[in-house]
Every structure is written in C-alpha cells, then in structure tokens.
C-alpha cells in the first residue's frame, strides 16, 4: 500500500516536471531530468567515492613519474641531489594520501535508507553531496599532483646545476601542494552535510 502510494507520488513529481518542461518549450515527458532523478543515490555516492580515490591516485602517479625520470637522469652527474629531491616525490605521494583519506571518510557517510525513502529529496541530496565531494577531491588532487610533479622535475634539474636554487624552488612546490589541500577541505565540508533521511 505504502509503496504504491510512493510510486504514485514519484509519478506525480515526474508529470509535474514534465508539464513544467512542456510549458517552457520542451516537448518530451520522459526527459533527461526525469532519468537523472530516477538514478539511485547509492550509485552517485559510489561513483563519487571511486573518483575521489581513483583520480587522486592518477594525479599522484603522473606527478611521481614526471619528477622521478628527471631526478634519476640528473643524479647521474650530480649524485648529491638524490636525498634532497625525494621531497618532491613525497609531496606527490601526499596527494594520493588525501584521496585515500577522503574516500574513507566518504564511505562512512554512506548509510542505508529504506527503499520507500530512496527517491526522497533528502536522499538524493545526500547522494549528490557525496558525489560532488568525490569529484572535488579527485580533480583537485589530479591537477595538484601534476603541478607538483612538473615543478619537482625542474627542481631536480636546477639543483643539479646550482644547489642554491633548491630551497627557492621548493617554496613554489609548497604553494602547489596547497591546491590539493583546498580540494580536501571543501570536499570534507561538502560531505559533512550528507545526511540521509532517518527511518
């Protein structure tokens, strides 16, 4: 009885949306808006968590290989640079760790709701919040990893020629790695409001 009511309510929402769209000029009742609303919030949350860890690790790995290949080559003629320049690799690695931390936090936010409430506005909101949080963290870490990697490569090559340059370029790298932190902060704030409807 309850589910049929809920289904009728969902259909009512869709017809209202369709009517609104028809009035605003779009014709089809089965529109993209309707399709999006029908996707389960669990899907969005899971994809968000996957993107958060996956794309962050992509960024970190990209940065590490950019910096690592230059570091290895430069260290042949100037072996003294190896230990100091591992710090660039560590900054890139930190980006991956941010991704892991946020993924773990997000997955604790993923709760079960009864199927009657699954397409409530509150549920959808929680699903979208986790998805957005994942995207924020993933892509912020992707570009942060790239940035730190490219600077780390230049840092290794400059250090090999002139060792006074290392600390100055390191400051640039520190500013670059702050980008990942911005992403993590905003992502965690977004996910804090992912409250699923209570039973």
């Amino acid at each position, binding site marked *: 009885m309850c589910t049929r009511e809920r289904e009728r309510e969902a259909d009512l929402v869709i017809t209202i949306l369709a009517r609104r769209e028809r009035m605003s000029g779009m014709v089809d009742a089965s529109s993209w808006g309707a399709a999006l609303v029908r996707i389960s919030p669990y899907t969005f949350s899971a994809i968000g968590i996957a993107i958060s860890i996956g794309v962050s690790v992509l960024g970190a790995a*990209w940065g590490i*290989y*950019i910096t690592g*290949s*230059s*570091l*290895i*080559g*430069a260290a*042949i*003629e*100037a072996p003294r640079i190896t230990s100091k320049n591992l710090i660039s690799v560590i900054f890139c690695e930190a980006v991956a760790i941010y991704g892991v931390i946020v993924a773990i936090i997000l997955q604790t936010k993923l709760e079960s709701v009864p199927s009657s409430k699954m397409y409530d506005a509150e549920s959808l909101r929680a699903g979208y919040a986790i998805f957005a949080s994942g995207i924020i963290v993933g892509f912020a870490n992707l570009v942060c990893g*790239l940035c730190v990697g*490219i600077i780390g*490569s*230049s840092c*290794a*090559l400059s250090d*090999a*020629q002139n060792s006074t340059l290392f600390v100055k370029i390191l400051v640039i790298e520190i500013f670059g790695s702050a980008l990942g932190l911005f992403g993590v902060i905003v992502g965690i704030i977004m996910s804090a409001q992912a409250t699923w409807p209570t039973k």
Partner: protein
Amino acid sequence: MYGFEALTFNIHGGYLEAIVRGHRAGLLTTADYNNLCQCENLDDIKMHLSATKYGSYLQNEPSPLHTTTIVEKCTLKLVDDYKHMLCQATEPMSTFLEYIRYGHMIDNVVLIVTGTLHERDVQELIEKCHPLGMFDSIATLAVAQNMRELYRLVLVDTPLAPYFSECLTSEDLDDMNIEIMRNTLYKAYLEDFYKFCQKLGGATAEIMSDLLAFEADRRAVNITINSIGTELTREDRKKLYSNFGFLYPYGHEELAICEDIDQVRGVMEKYPPYQAIFSKMSYGESQMLDKAFYEEEVRRLCLAFEQQFHYAVFFAYMRLREQEIRNLMWISECVAQNQKSRIHDSVVYMF
C-alpha cells in the same frame, strides 16, 4: 599541443633530457679557458683537461702529445655521449638525434671525394673523417667518377639518398662541382630537418626553427662571400640558398646580386638580428665575421637550455661541444706553435 608538453614529455624523454643537462654542466667555462690559455705546452693542457670531463679520455696518451690527438680524444667523448643517448632514445627522439649526424655525413662524403680527386690514399682520408658521420661502405666513395655513380654505388643506401635529387648530373667531379654538391646536399638536409621539426610541433618546433633559420642564413652569407669573384652565376648561387630563414625570400634576392663584402653588409644590416653582428666589424674586414657568427650561434644555443621538455637541448649540446672542440684545437695549435698572443682571436667563450 603547445604548452602542455610538460604532461607527457617525461614518459620517453625525461631521463635523457636530464642526462644531457648533466653533460651541459660539464662544458668548459671561461675560467677553464683562462687556465688553458696560460699553458706553456701541450702537456700542461693535458694536465688542465684532466680535471674536466675529458680527463679519462686523455690520461692514457703518452707524451709527446700532438694537437690532433687532443682533438681526436675530445671528439671521442662527444661521440660516446651521443651514442649513449641514441641507444636509449625512442621515436621520435631517435630520428631527431639521427638528423644531427647527417651534417657530418655530408662533410665526410665531400672530404673523401675531394681527397680522392687530389690523389690521396683512401685509408688516410677515412682516418680524418668525423666519427659521427661514418657509415658502412664509405670507402667505396673513392671509386666513383661522377655524381651519378656516387649516388648509385654508395649513397642510395645511406640516409643522404633523398637529398641527392637536386644534384644528380653526369658531370665529372672537380673542385667547383664538389663545393656545389656539398652546398646542395646541405640545403636539402636543412630543409628536411626543418620540416621534421615543424611536424614535431610544440616547443621543439619553435626553438629549432630559430636555430635552423640562423644556420641557413649563416650559410647563405658564407656562400655569398665565398663565391664573390668565382665563376658561380647568380642563378646558381640563388639555388644554393635554403627555403626558410629570416632572409628568405627577399634577402636571398638581394644577396644573389652582391659582388663584394660591403654590399653584403648593406643587405644584412636591414635585418635587426644580423645588424648587431655586422656592426661589430669595421668596413672591409671579413676575418672577424666567422667569429661573430660563432658567438651569435653560441648565444642562441645557450638560450635553448632555458626551456624544459623539448628536443632542442640535444641539438644545442652537440653544437656547443663541437664549438668547444674547435676552441680546444685553436688553443692547442696556438700553444704548440708559441703564438699565444693570437689565442683570443678565435676562442668563443660560452659561460
């Protein structure tokens, strides 16, 4: 995509770029050259060089040294560096590195053909060839009587084959034709290299275009100056100029009709990059021109190292090493012949 090479260059080129920059740090500085200029004899030079990267190459040479030995061993270092980089490179960097040696191949071909014309022994000539420009069957060049045979017997199997289409004639090889052949081959080689770099795109294309354009213009000026007063017609002279560079096409038309050096100077001073070079020389003087061109070339090559993630650093390093070997040869000759006052005439300082 220009500007985003930093994202993918290091996959294949990161290690080698770092290695070439390490080699660049080993080039001789002004302080080294000052030490070398103070030397009394070649053994002193050997001692000073043993503190540089050339040390391991020179240490087993017995005294008394000759200048040719010093130059030979230093060239050996250049060849070793080049081969090390070539065997680690993937496409398209390996093609780029191969292009760098075609210029030496052309020089070797011309050396052997000229030497054979003057009845020198083939083995002796092969020893004088630049090691970077060696290829199999180079000794067969001594057999050819004219250019068609040269092409058919030897050069069709070498990478120089496509450059021969413009100079296949059945004329006999004499000094004038050989010089024309050399310049025609070099023109085809430069244009081919230029097109290849344009195809690579990005920072490589931009920096290499600048370096190759300067090379093309320099050769145009040298061809003009060397052919003043010879029987080379204006049409022939114009055919030897490359189809790119700052001077193309209007500068070439003006250079083709020049009959003496002051006219050449008049033409070149219309172009700002070359005005600076020509303004350093007083009227009627052409000995300083070579050195002025070398200095300008070295300045541009050093600038190529300012940018990361492109292939022009390899080209620049090879050229800078060659300039350094020329410097060492000049210094050794001056010291060996006790003419140290003339050392500074021809040494081009790099950093």
